[in-house]
């Protein structure tokens, strides 16, 4: 059927595609309520360009299977267009290899992203591409990260990615990963969204006329349909289809029957129920069994349950396909076209528990070979069957798999499921519960959910202490140190690292010693105790180098920071560059961004503005692709500082204006104090002393909140400079003397020099 209305929306999409075809790719989102016609719009665009573009459709399924599924289940459709022939295989190898999770696996995700980027690049060198992902609000966090990465990567490719989502989810807490994804895009100024709305009355009339292929239509009927559907195309489409199946209307026949004879459904549920009543009994049975599997279903499992003859089974499947109930997803699976239909059918099932059990057992038998791609499904079915032991076992595996691939939201979901199942299974907690809690805690830590991280790890420690598992206790202490450090609770962090250190030395656990030493070294640096920082970090360096532990790169960056705080200009760079090399190797992008940021900073200190800008740009590039919003914000305001120093005040302000909302949304108090300080410095130069003062005061407030001694000292010195410029020497003096004292205590040479210089001016 032809598309009704939607001129504006199609025009917008056509524009985006034209740009993409000319080499400026983009991610465009379609939002709107369920059934409003988001997919219909994307399909229309794809139909118009099926000759001049490679069009790929994929849909995120509500029933989760594996991370990155929406990018993976269509490889066959594009593999013929890439130059590097083994690219698909390399992707599959990375994703499905059965390496176990041990340390951080950031590198794996990066390799996978790089491979997808390369694939899209090679395809687009060959042909323009439209890649449509439906229902992205259900996407696992890994897919969202990849989508965000690709949005950045396709800027110079001939690729248009369209993503459709249901706008109602924005207010729903369950979809916080998705709203975070949207926020991230918006921070990068990369959020383009088209909202699709329900039909107006005229469109409803045209829809019905087109559907029935008639010239005109009974006005009162349109009225009633408009009222029942609220102008929702999905409702209209299904209702009209129902009337035809119920034989109350016919195509190409002007409606003449009396309106009172047509029983207009009052809800979508009613439409589905009435449709099911019209299907042959065996077909509804198939739908019931399928609905227990989920929004998509494995055909071999379904067949195994039904004990139907192959030919008969095929016949009913194609009937259901023809009736618009199901569609083929890939070689193994079919899916329900509309999830609400699936939900309604599932509700009518009896003996659900037994069916879930049967499905799980069949998946285990029939998919033994690639069982690691079915962990989450198995866990879910065993859970719903009340088979707790199996549910917890598979859920834990699913958690590991997702953590390994950095799909953190799903990892958290799976670990929680495993824990619940374990609690159902047995009264007593054991080491395995503790291990799960520790993994869960670390996953929360990686996703920045400190409260939950801390609660999980504390719970784990209780169990380990009861069981006397020292090795795990040490790791849990380090995790708590990391959590508190990330939260800027330096005192608490220091206590946990120290506890870990004491125990690790007793147990001669070198790896743990290195980690604890790094943590303590970092905190000493933040407190301005540079000497003890250097000795701790030296120990961490020695051990991690020997053990080839990935923490080595991090230690190098930290060591650079201490030397930089000591006012040394050249030494830090040496360490940062060593860090860059190691971190590139371990693909630890978070710390790599930090290394570049700090390199830029060291050039900033040396007043080499252009070099500084170059490194901040590198930091920003990594941050944008890896979704490290904090570093993106930091690189913006650091660039602003360099621009300010270069005298390009307008550009500096623009950068700051972009940085501020980002850091505010991240509640990054260190970053906020930095931004406000830079605003202050720009206005200090501008001669707008009032604005300079307000901003410096804000910077000070945040620096204190963050317990950031360096920043407090810097901002104080700036304030003094401001007062000198205003001619208020006494006020400046009042600030400078104690500042000099703390600079001396901190042994901060550069800062001391600046203070002494200012002091000269007030004497």
């Amino acid at each position, binding site marked *: 059927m032809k598309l009704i209305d939607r001129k504006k929306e199609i025009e917008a999409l056509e524009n985006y595609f034209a740009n993409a075809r000319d080499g400026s790719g983009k991610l465009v989102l379609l939002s709107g309520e369920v059934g409003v016609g988001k997919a219909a719009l994307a399909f229309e665009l794809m139909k118009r360009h099926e000759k001049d573009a490679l069009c790929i459709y994929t849909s995120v399924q509500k029933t989760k299977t594996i991370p990155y599924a929406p990018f993976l289940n269509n490889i066959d459709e594009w593999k013929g267009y890439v130059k590097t022939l083994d690219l698909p295989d390399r992707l599959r190898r990375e994703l499905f290899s059965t390496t176990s999770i041990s340390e951080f696996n950031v590198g794996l995700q990066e390799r996978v992203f790089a491979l997808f980027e390369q694939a899209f690049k090679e395809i687009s060198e060959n042909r323009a591409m439209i890649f449509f992902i439906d229902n992205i609000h259900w996407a696992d966090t890994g897919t969202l990260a990849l989508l965000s990465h690709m949005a950045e990567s396709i800027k110079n490719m001939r690729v248009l990615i369209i993503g459709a989502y249901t*706008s109602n989810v*924005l*207010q729903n*807490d369950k979809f916080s990963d998705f709203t*975070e994804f*949207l926020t991230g895009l918006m*921070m990068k100024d990369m959020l383009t969204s088209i909202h699709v709305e329900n039909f107006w009355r005229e469109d409803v009339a045209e829809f019905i006329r087109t559907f029935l292929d008639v010239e005109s239509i009974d006005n009162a009927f349109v009225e009633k349909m408009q009222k029942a559907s609220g102008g929702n195309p999905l409702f209209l489409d299904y209702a009209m289809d129902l009337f035809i199946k119920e034989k109350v209307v016919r195509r190409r026949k002007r409606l003449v029957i009396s309106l009172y004879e047509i029983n207009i459904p009052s809800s979508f549920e009613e439409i589905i129920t009435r449709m099911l009543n019209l299907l042959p009994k065996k077909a509804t049975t198939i739908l019931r069994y399928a609905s227990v599997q989920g929004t998509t279903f494995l055909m071999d499992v379904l067949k195994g349950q039904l004990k139907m003859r192959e030919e008969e089974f095929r016949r009913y499947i194609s009937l259901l396909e023809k009736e618009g109930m199901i569609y083929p997803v890939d070689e193994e699976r079919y899916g329900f076209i509309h999830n609400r239909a699936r939900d309604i059918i599932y509700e009518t099932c009896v003996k659900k528990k037994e069916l879930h059990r049967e499905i799980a057992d069949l998946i285990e038998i029939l998919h033994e070979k690639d069982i690691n791609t079915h962990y989450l499904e198995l866990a879910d079915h065993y859970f719903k069957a009340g088979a707790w032991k199996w549910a917890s076992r598979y859920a834990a595996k699913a958690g590991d798999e997702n953590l390994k691939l950095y799909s953190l939201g799903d990892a958290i979901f799976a670990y929680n499921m495993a824990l619940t199942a374990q609690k159902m299974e047995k009264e007593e907690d054991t080491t395995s519960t503790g291990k799960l809690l520790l993994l869960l805690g670390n996953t929360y830590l990686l996703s920045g959910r400190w409260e939950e991280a801390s609660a999980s790890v504390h719970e784990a420690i209780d169990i380990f202490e009861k069981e006397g598992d020292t090795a795990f206790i040490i790791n849990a202490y380090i995790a708590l140190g990391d959590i508190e450090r990330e939260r800027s609770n330096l005192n608490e962090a220091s206590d946990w690292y120290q506890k870990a250190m004491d125990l690790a030395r007793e147990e001669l656990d070198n790896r743990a010693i290195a980690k604890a030493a790094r943590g303590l070294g970092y905190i000493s640096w933040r407190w301005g105790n540079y000497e003890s920082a250097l000795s701790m970090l030296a120990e961490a360096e020695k051990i991690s180098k020997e053990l080839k532990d990935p923490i080595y790169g991090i230690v190098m960056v930290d060591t650079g920071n201490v030397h930089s705080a000591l006012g040394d200009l050249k030494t830090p760079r040496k360490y940062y560059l060593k860090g860059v090399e190691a971190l590139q190797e371990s693909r630890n992008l978070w710390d790599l961004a930090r290394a570049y940021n700090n390199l830029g900073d060291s050039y900033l200190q040396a007043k080499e503005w252009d070099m500084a800008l170059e490194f901040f740009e590198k930091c920003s590039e990594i941050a944008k692709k890896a979704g490290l919003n904090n570093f993106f914000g930091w690189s913006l305001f650091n660039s602003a500082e360099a621009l300010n120093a270069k005298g390009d005040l307008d550009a500096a302000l623009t950068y700051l204006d972009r940085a501020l*909302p980002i850091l505010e949304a991240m509640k990054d108090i260190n970053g906020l104090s930095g931004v406000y300080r830079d605003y202050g410095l720009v206005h200090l130069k501008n001669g707008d002393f009032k604005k300079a003062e307000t901003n410096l005061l804000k910077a000070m407030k945040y620096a204190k909140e963050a317990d950031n001694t360096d920043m407090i000292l810097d901002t104080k010195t700036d304030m003094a400079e401001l007062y000198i410029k205003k001619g208020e020497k006494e006020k400046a003096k009042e600030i400078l003397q104690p500042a000099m004292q703390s600079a001396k205590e901190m042994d901060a040479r550069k800062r001391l020099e600046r203070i002494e210089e200012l002091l000269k001016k007030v004497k």
Partner: protein
Amino acid sequence: MSRELTKKIQEIMSAEMGHIGVFIVSKQCRDLGVDPEDIEPEDLNDLAKALGKVMLTFGGSEKARKVEREIKKLAN
């Protein structure tokens, strides 16, 4: 007082947009040259229009009008 206005506007946006609402408010403030920590009643008109426009691409015209109306109301 002015911080209170910020809070109320953030609440209005978050009710429709969830978490992302807070970010949108401070971003639109910056684009209009308004200090998000210091919104004055006379800024409300422009801000309401700007936020309504953003809302249009996420939640459609009805919600856009609602947001605009509610923010303008804060001026009294």
